[in-house]
């Protein structure tokens, strides 16, 4: 019996564990090894160079430029995405007309709204990038956004969008927000639905308006979910590879204005064949990601409210 049990455990665990070890765990370990070599990809030619790649990285303006863009997005994208997500979720769940016997109601058709809002989540990022590339078409007459602005008399706002150095990164950030708000609407709606109704009812009966209710009741009770969502969205903002690669002028342009760390890494490795240096960038990305996650969880920690 015991013998059969262990044979079963090993038999079931070995195949998935083997695949995982070969394709995930071993690359993880090798990433650190390769980052300390000057490897150009030929078998057996890697030379150990210690921390040289990291020193080079530290002194590279290009790297700081790319890192700065990721950090800018990290500051902007999660904040806007989560704020909009919370706002829409609150509207869907509490913004409805008062119906009989219900003090707090959701708006009619909330299922439909959630269906539409969530849609970009299931669409490939390449498709989203091609769509927005067309929306941001710089031509004043032919560009989708520009011609729309022209039609409503806002010609002054027409722009070259992705071709405009000071705007390009924000254009790409906006696409990220656009694509992920729906995810948080659904997530926060589910979390709000688990808040007992009588808490709202008690607050409304005591004369609290809906907006104080949101800030004094809903938000504190959702704090755990908001925090997790923040980390998720931050990790997405630290990537942005596919959007930048497909949408930006000359990959990361104009003039480096949309360059991001993953794009640097990709080009350094697979265009320039500087694998050691690129691997060092990967390790740096890991450090930045971990630092962000730890800091968020450390500073956003509040006393958990049980209900």
């Amino acid at each position, binding site marked *: 019996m015991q013998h059969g049990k262990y044979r079963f455990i090993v038999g079931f665990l070995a195949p998935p564990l083997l695949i995982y070890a070969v*394709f995930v765990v071993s690359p993880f370990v090798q990433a650190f090894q390769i980052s300390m070599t000057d490897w150009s990809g030929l078998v057996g030619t890697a030379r150990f160079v210690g921390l040289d790649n990291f020193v080079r990285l530290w002194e590279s303006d290009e790297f700081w430029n790319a890192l700065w863009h990721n950090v800018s997005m990290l500051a902007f994208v999660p904040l806007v995405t989560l704020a909009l997500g919370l706002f829409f979720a609150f509207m869907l769940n509490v913004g409805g007309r008062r119906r009989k016997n219900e003090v707090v109601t959701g708006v009619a058709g909330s299922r439909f709204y959630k269906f539409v809002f969530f*849609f970009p989540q299931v669409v490939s990022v390449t498709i989203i990038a091609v769509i927005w590339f067309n929306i941001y078409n710089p031509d004043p007459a032919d560009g989708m956004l520009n011609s729309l602005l022209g039609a409503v008399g806002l010609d002054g706002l027409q722009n070259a969008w992705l071709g405009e150095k000071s705007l390009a990164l924000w254009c790409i950030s906006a696409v990220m927000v656009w694509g992920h708000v729906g995810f948080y609407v659904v997530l926060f709606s589910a979390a709000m639905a688990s808040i007992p109704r009588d808490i709202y009812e008690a607050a409304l*009966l005591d004369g609290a308006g809906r907006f104080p209710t949101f800030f004094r009741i809903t938000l504190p009770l959702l704090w755990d979910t908001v925090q997790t969502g923040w980390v998720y969205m931050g990790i997405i903002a630290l990537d942005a590879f596919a959007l930048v690669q497909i949408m930006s002028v000359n990959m990361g342009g104009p003039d480096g204005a949309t360059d991001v760390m993953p794009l640097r890494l990709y080009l350094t490795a*697979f265009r320039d064949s500087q694998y050691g240096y690129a691997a060092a960038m*990967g390790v740096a990305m890991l450090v930045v990601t971990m630092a962000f996650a730890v800091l968020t969880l450390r500073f956003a920690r509040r006393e958990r409210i049980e209900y």
Partner: protein
Amino acid sequence: MATDEIVKTDGPAGGARGPHGGGRAPRRTGARSSEGGVLNVFSHGILVLWALMVGVPLLWVLWSAFKDSNGILTDPWGLPTVLHWENWSNAWDEANMGRYFVNTAIVVGGSVVGTMVLGSMAAYVLARFTFPGNRLVYYLFVAGMSFPVFMLVIPLFFVMRDFPGTSLLATYHGLILVYIAYSLPFTVFFMTAFFRTLPTSVAEAAMIDGASHTRTFFQVMLPMAKPGLISIGIFNFLGQWNQYLLPMVLNQQEDKYVLTQGLAMIALQQGYENDWGALMAGMMIAMLPVLVVYAVFQRQVQAGLTAGALK
């Protein structure tokens, strides 16, 4: 005072009262319901606006798939005057979307099945058996959810290229194995939690009746885990169908391209001399399977994709 008492007991508990039920003070009721009315108009306005902002760009792909390149470029908002059905056949044949579609279907078909089988095997053992190292293996899998995949692509490229025997780059089985490996962390995490919620008595009864561990798993436990398998299966299908980074790095051979790569290549390559009509039709072709899955399984898709953040 008395009215307040009535309202309080009436509100949450009273189900059968009419619209003016209870003894609410009329002034406050009126003030609050008008607040609700204004808010209702306001909230619908904003929600409709966002729905348009999300929905119109996606619908734009659909109607552009029936326009010619010139129409898409010079009049992007215009509806098609003539339905250019040839965009679809151009996309399928000349832009090679047909081949990319078949490649994607083979890879994703293999990897979804593989992920489900291997993931639930590992999750079952980790959820239901105590043995030394159980926690270690579990956390090894779960840790895979937390670091950037970008960091791994360089070493992974060489693991694939220098694989003992034969290179795994630009092969179906190579890509399938990688997709499985990178889907395992979340699948194991999700299914372990799911298997823990299932009752133990049924499995025990099967064992007493003489079924082996393996047979109990496949004939008793897997059927019981069906709701969880559907959620995680949809999650993996969507993630793998839309995967871009891994094939970009590991599958750089045109006849093996998956849909996301093919679309990106067309979009990146020729810019404005492109056949935009065919590109739009190609995007529709790439989107169609996810669209069907999403329309049919809306609830499971939303629950599955947000499950990771709700833990």
